[in-house]
């Protein structure tokens, strides 16, 4: 079976089942297992007393080894599994756990619902599950903005990128990407503790998401059916502080006619960040719903393209 077919089947399973709560309660999740390894390595090797450069190298060694171990294990599993239906089923099952389209939808929808009924407290709680900023500072527009930015960025990080690397290199590619992305989200922060240690993981994640972010932006722009979305994406994407997140976010912003990114509160400071689609209005709860619709449409297009590719390769 081709890697594209494997990924298509895995995603199909993920769309239908996701990662069920009962399973999470029993065995947690492969990303959580990997996260525990990252924590252990970070506590052992990220020493405050070390110089910036030493900490950067320690982080680089940790990153390369952890990604290497995970990838080799995935490669071994893929090799050792028998070439019959239940061997494929197990590989599909493992791969499906590393795609996050359903959980992203659930998490963002969980913000939209209380926000629709003006329950700011609940909406803030829900949004704190998906973004790093202080939710107590956020009003309705702030909550909607944070959710939509997270939705756009994670469409690339959590869906397109795993599909992309999985379709190219099968289970090992998918696992390697997921390992890099997990390392980045745990250590790629620009604060005193992580700036040096997580520096390499952050750069590696930028590289891994370079193509998926641009593809995701194009998919969102295309399915938004707004002719201006591509122009806004090309004009505004580079203004974003991340080299990748600006692409899907700018496309989403224009697609919904809202403005995203912009100055925000972190640690009681207001950052100087440019707006994406600055002429747009501030988003509200309805825009999250519209964003989720746009998300479904762009994933439907991705799915059709992937399935067609799998079929054409099989024929």
């Amino acid at each position, binding site marked *: 079976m081709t890697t594209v077919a494997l990924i298509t089947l895995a995603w199909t399973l993920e769309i239908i089942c996701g990662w069920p709560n009962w399973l999470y309660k029993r065995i947690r999740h492969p990303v959580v297992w990997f996260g525990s390894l990252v924590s252990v390595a970070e506590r052992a090797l990220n020493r405050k007393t070390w110089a910036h450069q030493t900490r950067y190298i320690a982080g680089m060694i940790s990153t390369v080894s952890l990604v290497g171990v995970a990838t080799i294990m995935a490669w071994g599993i893929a090799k050792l599994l028998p070439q019959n239906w239940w061997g494929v089923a197990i590989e599909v099952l493992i791969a499906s756990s590393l795609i996050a389209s359903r959980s992203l939808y659930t998490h963002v929808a969980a913000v939209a619902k209380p926000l629709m009924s003006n329950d700011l407290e609940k909406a803030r709680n829900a949004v704190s599950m998906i973004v790093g900023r202080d939710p107590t500072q956020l009003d309705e527009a702030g909550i909607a903005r944070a959710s939509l930015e997270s939705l756009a960025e994670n469409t690339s990080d959590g869906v397109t990128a795993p599909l992309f690397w999985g379709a190219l290199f099968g289970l090992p590619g998918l696992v390697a990407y997921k390992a890099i992305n997990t390392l980045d989200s745990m250590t790629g922060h620009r604060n005193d503790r992580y700036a040096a240690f997580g520096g390499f993981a952050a750069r590696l994640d930028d590289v891994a998401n370079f193509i998926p972010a641009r593809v995701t932006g194009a998919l969102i722009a295309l399915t938004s059916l707004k002719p201006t979305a591509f122009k806004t994406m090309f004009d505004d994407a580079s203004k974003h502080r991340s080299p990748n997140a600006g692409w899907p976010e700018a496309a989403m912003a224009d697609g919904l006619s809202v403005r995203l990114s912009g100055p925000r509160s972190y640690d009681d400071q207001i950052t*100087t960040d440019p707006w994406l689609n600055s002429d747009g209005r501030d988003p509200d709860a309805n825009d999250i719903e519209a964003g989720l619709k746009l998300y479904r449409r762009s994933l439907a297009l991705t799915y059709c393209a992937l399935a067609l590719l799998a079929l054409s390769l099989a024929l």
Partner: protein
Amino acid sequence: MTSDTRHGGALDLMRTAYPDAPQPWIDLSTGLNPWPYPDLMLSAEALAHLPTQQMYDACRDAMASAFGGKPDTLILSPGSELQIRLLPDVITPRSVAILSPTYGDHAEAWTQAGADVIETPDPLSYTDEVDAIVITNPNNPDGRLFDPEALDAARIALNNRGGWLIIDEAYADLMPEYSIVSGGGADGLVILRSFGKFFGLAGLRLGALIASEPVLKAMANRLGVWPVSGAALQIGARAYADIAWQDQTRDKLKAAMDRLDTILKSVGLSTVGGTSLFRLIETPNAHVLFDQLARAGIYVRRFETSKTHLRIGLPPNPEAEARLAAALSL
């Protein structure tokens, strides 16, 4: 304080430097209203208790109403100087264009914060390049005015890039028509107001910050629970509600400014700028004139950055006007 050249107001240093000058000294170095708001009665409660939310709200509401702004876009502070110092910790532009010349502490605060500072007579021309622009309007010491519409256009352009327009309206009580407080609370706009200059009560330490909600919250967290004393709240609430006194004072200051200009003109000095609280004069050797006035017991403002300018505040009475005229015509 070791030098008088930064802020003026160092009368103690002048007494030491010019022990033979005629008494009493006339201090024209600060540009404060020489006829302070008169009703300084305080209730015992204002000092015997911690300031209450009610007192805070009363002062803030009176202030907002006098400025033509909305109370929820404004927080009180102990003078605008502290806000100038704290602002670089609240918002984080990497590059800042600051009007020059102006109150020197803006450039100092942003430089200390590590921002790239450009001091320029035309900061609005940097709208598309920098992350923040600082303008004092009306400006000190030259009284330069910026058109509110031009400022709003700059604010919009800056905000699109996540940047900031910072307006120091320390002297805006003199010319309310140039204030942009009515648009306060907009994204990317920070306005600083000061009580002490127009009301002549600089020692009370009262000011306000007008900005969008996240900036107000972050600044309020830094200022703590009782940023302003009960005395300042009580006097501030009364003074800002006294619109009649403010209108009379604007007229009175303008009349005094005209008299000062006449004195300056009569001795051949040209006024090159200023507001109705102070006049900026240009003269080939300003430090010689400074010395000449100091020997006559008159203290004016000189500058580190210019050897050809002096700033002269309003003489508080006819005797002071006469002494100034006499000292200048020596």
